[in-house]
């Protein structure tokens, strides 16, 4: 029930402004974007899809920031492991 999947908006429905076609890994479906009426998505933007509705836009900057944090942790980790390994060489 919490199931929400990121999908890319491909096109808006020509006749019905609250419908849009999204792409999820090559699979396409019409969803209702009425819950984003205050800031409707445009083709190329990503949304979170839940039971046929877009609940939220995916903020690419935030996603990048999250990735950066994780990569930073990863780099720091690799550095530490490298340091640990070096210090074993007596």
């Amino acid at each position, binding site marked *: 029930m919490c*199931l929400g*999947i990121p999908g890319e908006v491909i096109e808006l429905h020509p006749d019905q402004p609250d419908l849009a076609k999204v792409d*999820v*890994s*090559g*699979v*396409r*479906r019409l969803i209702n974007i009425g819950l984003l009426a205050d800031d409707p998505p445009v083709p190329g933007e990503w949304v979170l*899809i839940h039971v046929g509705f877009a609940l939220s836009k995916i903020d690419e900057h935030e996603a990048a920031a999250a990735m950066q944090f994780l990569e930073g942790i990863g780099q720091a980790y690799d550095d530490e492991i490298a340091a640990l390994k070096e210090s074993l060489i007596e």
Partner: protein
Amino acid sequence: MTVDHDHQPGWIGEALAEHDQLETEGRTQLPLADREQQVLDRIDRARRRRPRVREERVTMSHGSGGKATHTLIEAIFLDAFRNPLLEPLEDAAQLAVGGARIALTTDSYVVSPLFFPGGNIGDLAVNGTVNDLSVAGARPLYLSAGFILEEGFPVADLARVVEAMRDAAAAAGVQVVTGDTKVVQKGKADGCYINTAGVGLIERDGALGVARARPGDAIIVSGPIGDHGITIMLARGELDIEADICSDTAPLNGLVAGLLDAVPGVRAMRDATRGGVATILNEIAKAADVGVLVSEDAIPVRAEVRGASELLGIDPMYVACEGRLVAVVPGEEADRAVAALRAHPLGEQAAVIGRVRAEQPGIVQLKTAFGGTRIVDLLVGDPLPRIC
């Protein structure tokens, strides 16, 4: 107003009694990890008990190929018909008749819709039965075809189905040699149901069967999984999903012959239909009483199948295929087996997906792409009914 409904049929009472027994023995005071292990042991014993069907009526779960189906088969059919030839519950029965060894199988096809990208019910009816014979190590020879037709079903559609069967039979090198036709009133049979039975000749030495799996064996899948089930689901049109996926229905006898020529020591093969690859892995673990460990990264899945599955919250491992096989081969033969499969057009993406091991017998585990481990159990029902 409160109604006290007490489901106290025997098995609940038994479970509570067992728990109380453990308490009086003071065994529930052990450290946490030990207590958990105790519970796991208790569950293992419960799972090995004789299956019983608890429902009064058949439900859709019983047709899914998962736990409910297995329970129904074991408790009702196996119990009534019991004999050594039936007990292995393989895809085909292996019989000695006169001096020859033959394989016999049967399958019924109730897929809805009848026509879908990649084929129709006729293709399934031929290929499905050919495949059950092939994975038993038999050369498929002859099929029977029984039709149950709904009053009002267009003859043109019937012709299309039958033409597909003709072409599929020719491609597989088999002949339909006998059949039957029945018509039922409008509202039953959903257009057309087909049953095919098949007979093949076992010409190779060595028995095949999932019970023969051994620790160290490799588990191989012949190509990307889940294509057929997802295709059917999308073809039902209820989900408004478009994707470029089509059913993988195909006769596997050529692929199987190539594999057996290269690796005569193949222990077992199954075609992955209802219930998907996950069901077969569980059948292996249970029949041979071994553990199975597969790697999520190694399992081939098309991007669109993955996308559709994620969208619907389904795991591709449980989604039906109609032209894929799972093979268990001795560990040292794995590379040769994969090469043999890849040499055939239907096996281009064959891959080793995991190993058989001694630890945790009866249980299938998956090493996730993330690096953690989890169990892959049989599902009770199937989110995609009437798949094949």
